[in-house]
């Protein structure tokens, strides 16, 4: 077997960006798209400071989160470990981009030129890449060099014609490429002889990109080492901080908001049907409208909307987006059928579909490994619980407005109180679980917490209690429901568009730079 892997020797890298530029040339990437780039990181406090240059890009993980989440199977993995993207079936949903903890994926929604569309240059015209528009793109390990090279009997990593462009270009010989499964290969030897790490090892992606930081016992250092001196570096600051992901914006948030509310409404309505014999039709129609609206909004966000409805169902094995879509296409006709035909027997399947839909939404977030604020297991519980709270709120509103006679208000108010309290509990559990995340994400969540607890929990609960005791005050009940719903929507809006700072970058060790005090402790900029 073959397992292609890349090695960046941090001792050698000078951050010159020659590899960045060579990659842009070899792959004709658009402006601001850098499949390969080199980070400039700093650790310590003046005057004890170290600075390191860290090449990053697609790590071609053995267990790639991007592939698991991909709904279209556009992202696949070859037998040799290279993670690929089929531009012809990718729908541009960017789920992979929020799942990749190395921020390696790009999506360009319209052709982009260095000096503007009106000034498209000759080489840009010759090498325009229309297939890449609106879809995910990333480092390919230069398969277009490796594969023909292998066909010609060349060895990737050794013969330049078969080697990734970034490796070829590296003026410091810091980048290496080769077959990890070959014990005699260049990369195997380097890993044997040197201390190394992989980025974000704790995420268990089994990255195919290794960083050398210090000579091992078999290393090549000839000059005797110095005894370490000075204080160890305090792990601090400089370098690229985690940034707010922009792949999923308000349109994606709208899917979670509308879909969650719709799903929650269905769940509550079916429970109401079973428990109190309330009618299903108005609620089912309202819920279907919510779900459909959510799907519409997220469809607007896909880079390839015409392709999306056909390709999104291809990956039920692991993609929660595919599963969500599948559930949605079962849920919508079932809800309509239930509303149209009034079949009470559909209540059970509908409830199951609704809960499944909500669970899929929750799991979509937990599988987005790039976003620490999403990926904790409790996120799913939070998403489901807030959906139920929103559902209970909309149920109460719809009942009050549409079928006031058929729904016992006290029961609906009690359910609302229960649901907002459950959501608050889920929120508390979520925050308790989320111990480690980018500082900026924690700040956002911390600032939002009082709003959710007071405005989204205490207020609707108090109003609902008041409405319970002041029977005959539907306005108070409606206010209770409204605040419960708005609290949930705000929660999801904040979670998707404001707290979604990505993983950022980290190194486990600062590199040894010749004979010095040795490699310092690592840094994880932007994390507390």
């Amino acid at each position, binding site marked *: 077997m073959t397992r292609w892997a890349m090695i960046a020797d941090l001792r050698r890298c000078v951050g010159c960006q020659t590899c960045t530029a060579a990659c842009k040339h070899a792959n004709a990437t658009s402006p601001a798209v850098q499949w390969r780039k080199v980070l400039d990181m*700093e650790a310590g*406090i003046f005057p004890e400071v170290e600075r390191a240059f860290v090449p990053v890009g697609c790590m071609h993980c053995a267990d790639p989160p991007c592939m698991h989440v991909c709904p279209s199977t556009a992202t696949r993995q070859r037998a040799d470990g290279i993670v690929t993207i089929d531009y012809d079936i990718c729908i541009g949903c960017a789920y992979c981009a929020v799942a990749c903890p190395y921020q390696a994926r790009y999506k360009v929604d319209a052709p982009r030129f260095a000096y503007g569309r009106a000034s498209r240059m000759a080489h840009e015209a010759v090498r325009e890449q229309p297939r890449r528009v609106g879809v995910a793109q990333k480092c390919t390990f230069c398969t277009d060099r490796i594969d023909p090279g292998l066909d010609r009997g060349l060895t990737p990593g050794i013969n330049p014609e078969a080697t990734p*462009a970034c490796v070829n270009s590296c*003026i410091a010989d810091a980048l290496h490429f080769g077959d990890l499964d070959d014990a005699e290969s260049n990369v195997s030897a380097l890993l044997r002889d040197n201390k190394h790490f992989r980025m974000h090892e704790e995420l268990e992606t089994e990255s195919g990109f290794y960083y050398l930081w210090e000579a091992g016992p078999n290393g090549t250092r000839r*000059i005797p080492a110095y005894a370490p001196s000075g204080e160890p570096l305090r792990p601090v600051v400089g370098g690229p901080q985690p940034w707010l992901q922009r792949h999923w914006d308000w349109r994606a948030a709208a899917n979670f908001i509308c879909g969650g509310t719709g799903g929650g409404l269905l769940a509550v309505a079916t429970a109401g049907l079973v428990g109190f014999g309330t009618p299903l039709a108005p609620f089912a129609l309202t819920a279907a409208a919510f779900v459909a609206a959510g799907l519409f909004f997220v469809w607007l966000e896909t880079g390839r909307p015409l392709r999306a409805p056909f390709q999104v169902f291809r990956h039920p094995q692991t993609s929660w987006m595919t599963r969500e879509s599948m559930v949605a296409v079962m849920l919508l006709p079932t809800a309509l059928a239930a509303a149209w035909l009034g079949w009470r027997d559909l209540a059970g399947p509908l409830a199951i579909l609704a809960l499944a839909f909500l669970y899929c939404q929750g799991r979509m977030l937990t599988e987005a490994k790039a976003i620490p604020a999403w990926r904790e297991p409790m996120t799913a519980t939070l998403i489901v619980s807030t959906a139920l709270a929103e559902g209970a709120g909309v149920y109460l509103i719809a009942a009050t407005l549409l079928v006031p006679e058929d729904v016992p208000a006290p029961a609906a108010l009690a359910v609302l109180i229960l649901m907002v309290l459950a959501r608050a509990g889920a929120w508390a559990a979520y925050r308790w679980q989320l111990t480690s995340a980018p500082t900026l994400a924690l700040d956002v969540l911390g600032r939002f917490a009082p709003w959710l607890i007071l405005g989204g929990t205490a207020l609707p609960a108090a109003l609902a209690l008041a409405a319970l005791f002041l029977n005959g005050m539907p306005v108070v009940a409606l206010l209770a429901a409204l605040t419960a719903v708005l609290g949930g929507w705000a929660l999801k809006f904040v979670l998707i568009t404001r707290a979604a700072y990505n993983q950022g970058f980290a190194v486990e060790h600062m590199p040894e*730079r010749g004979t010095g005090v040795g490699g310092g402790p690592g840094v994880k900029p932007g994390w507390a």
Partner: protein
Amino acid sequence: MTQERSSPARHVPTYCYQCVAGPDLLTVKVEDGVATEVEPNFAAADVHPAAGRICVKAYGLVQKTYNPDRIVTPLRRTNPRKGRDENPRFIPISWDEALDAIAARLKETRDRGLHDSSGYPRLAASFGGGGTPTAYMGTFPALLSAWGPVDFGFGSGQGVKCYHSEHLYGEFWHRAFTVCPDTPLTDYVISFGGNVEASGGVCGVKRYADARERGIRRVQVEPHLSITGACSAEWVPIKPKTDPAFLYAMLHVLLHEHARDDLDLEFIKHRTSAPYLVGRFGFYIRDAETRKPLIWDARTDSAVPFDTPGAEPVLEAPFLVDGGIEIGADGHVWRHKAERCQSAFEILVAHVRNTTPLWASRICDVPAKTIRRIANEFLHHARVGATIDIEGLTLPHRPVAIVLGKSVNNGWGGFDCCWARTVLACLVGALEVPGGILGTTVRLNRPATSRQASVRAGPDGFMAYPMNPTDKERWVARPEVRNANRTLIPLVANSPWSQALGPTHLAWMMQDDPPENWPEPTTPDVWFVYRTNPLISFWDTDKIGRTIARFPFTVCFAYTRDETNHFADIVLPECTDLESLQLIRIGGTKYFEQYWEHQGFALRQPAVEPAAEARDFTWIATELARRSGLLREYNEALAKGAAGVPLKTEEYDFALDPDTAHSVEDTWDAICRAASAELTAGAESQGLDYYREHGYRVAPFPRLDWYLFPELAAQGLRFELPYQERLHRVGKELANRLHERGISWWDAQLEEYDPLPEWKDYPGLWERALAENFQVDIAEFPFWLLTARSMQYAWGGNADIQMIKEVADNVVGHGGVIINAGKAAELGIAEGDWVEVRSPLNATRGRAVLRQGIRPDTLLMIGQFDHWATPMAKSFQVPSMNRLTPMLLDLTDATGSGADLVKVALRRAKRPS
């Protein structure tokens, strides 16, 4: 993953000489007649020290070729008024019109005489730093040679933004226009502000990476943590401009805290001037008859001429010499009877007696124990006594080196640093030997192609040096060019490079403010500008703009509009890097890390068709020669080698008919044939077709020629260190000459001609100069503002290339002003905030970039931006220190150099509109 092509791609070999750290070899991938990729030249992997690779700058050449902002037709100015705020109102014109206009102007100028009323050349030309434009200007040098006297003194940073003291003193002491460690063999490097990982080119980066892997220890001494600091084992954040004190303390440690036997006494006694005896007037004690300096011979226990066969020099003893003489300035002789004297070595020892690490620590803001440890590490790693076999010759192996960066190496204090660094190398025998420091090229001595051949016996057992004369008869009293290089700077010599190394800011300064008893300033009648942009890259750029506006006829070769050609009368679009033809020398030993085990030639050839009306520089030069009536002289200059290779020697003759305007291809075919013949001692004569196919041709270059020591040893010569008797005399003579003409404004500079440099309070010197010249309270300017080179931009003239900007922004600091994060917090400045940086001269604004790797009293602005005319770059909003740095005589040292250093105030500011 690219699209299908209609025809197979071609890979065209060529070279990149964007920066002085080149040239390097590359290939250009051409698809359907369009250049699409730059790639390494893998075929050169065994020849080129960086295995045929090129740095990031070369990857900008594709966008440079197709840049939509390119000027692609000659332009003529229609607005006679010139100024930053004046629209030049350029209109496109034909090549005939452009060339005829220039030729007419040249003829008219020539008719009025080659020199103007002040004796200055009427023709001036400014090219970018490091001579790199020569690798792109085809045969234009032959046109300038055909013309005659040209003023190259209007610089664009040369002399103040280079390694100026090293250029001059380095050439003087060890044929070292640039100084570089023997990186493949060195174990320990102390780098004072050197930034090899950013400006040392691909060879530097590759060699140091190899060295790090084998365990080299490099200590980076500088106020901010540069790219090179990042790649070093240790960072010592020294206070700006105090490096000499650190180096003097190292000298103290070696000379006062170690046994003499720890030093390389063999080297000191036999390869330096240390044993020369010095008299009471500061000059060598000489034999009255032969006038040779005396040393004390242990064998005979007597003073003998330095070159007495078998003499065993004594370094330290109570010396008493009978009948010696001292020779001072202008031939003045003192005759001594019984004279107690000291050896140069003893004077050196006394000189650094008080420069202890404790003393230096207070000046440098570096702990004394750090300075002492580093000095001890230096000595320890020198491995005094070790030898190594190089190509069959056993040489000392001294794997220690001290390198100096920009700003350390120029302006006041630069001499001190160069001297102390080179003396430290001498003390451990690490000068021009394997592992030690090497001079890698000569530009002032001749021949330029061989350091070894430039070594000739001079006075007193040292190498000859082409010093500008200071004696009464031969002193160049009337400046030949506007920067007066030969008049004021004896060390700058008189090679084709000397003008650009003269005090290039003097040419600009004196335009407005001529000093006493000096020729009236005049503007050049015609000024050619190529690959340089002094409006951005020199200091006090607003003032330079006002000066250039007065130049009557400016011709700029340009590929886009920029700040300097904003003032042009005619703009000519030459074929750019991937469109034109030229053969240059590669390999051997060149700047910095460009020392190879091969030497030869590389061709730059058109990979693609020229853009619109752009023309090959050689065609332009030939046409200008023809239309100006200089064709014969031009062809004769070509035959003499003005384009890099003589066309006619005793071994071969490829000279072209002198009265014919030859095509670009015919011209370079002849040059290629001459190059082939030179490489093969006349045996072969392959022409242009060979080089087009292969890209380059080399022959082995002996590694022994990396080192000057064997040549000196073979000729029985010494390095002229530590004692500067010759310079001391030259300084006295220069003082006499200037004073005889009533010139006293150069007196401060004359004080630098000390036999051993004394520490002066250099930071205080800067502060006083700024305070006095601008009448400010310097306490209100508490920060030192520095700059640093950027590999992505340095020398590249590429600020308008989108891809370069995109990738450069991955390196922190390109977007603003780097400020110590702790200091910024004190001032309430956050990352990305707009700040105003104000010097006594001017103010600029930029975004705050907060880092821990910079001293709290220091600010850093990388590169030289501040564009206002260059397309794209003018929207960067990135500040440059050039606008803030004044040109002051008070801050000009004896070599005519200044430093990129100014004191500034910092405050939060509004975003500029």
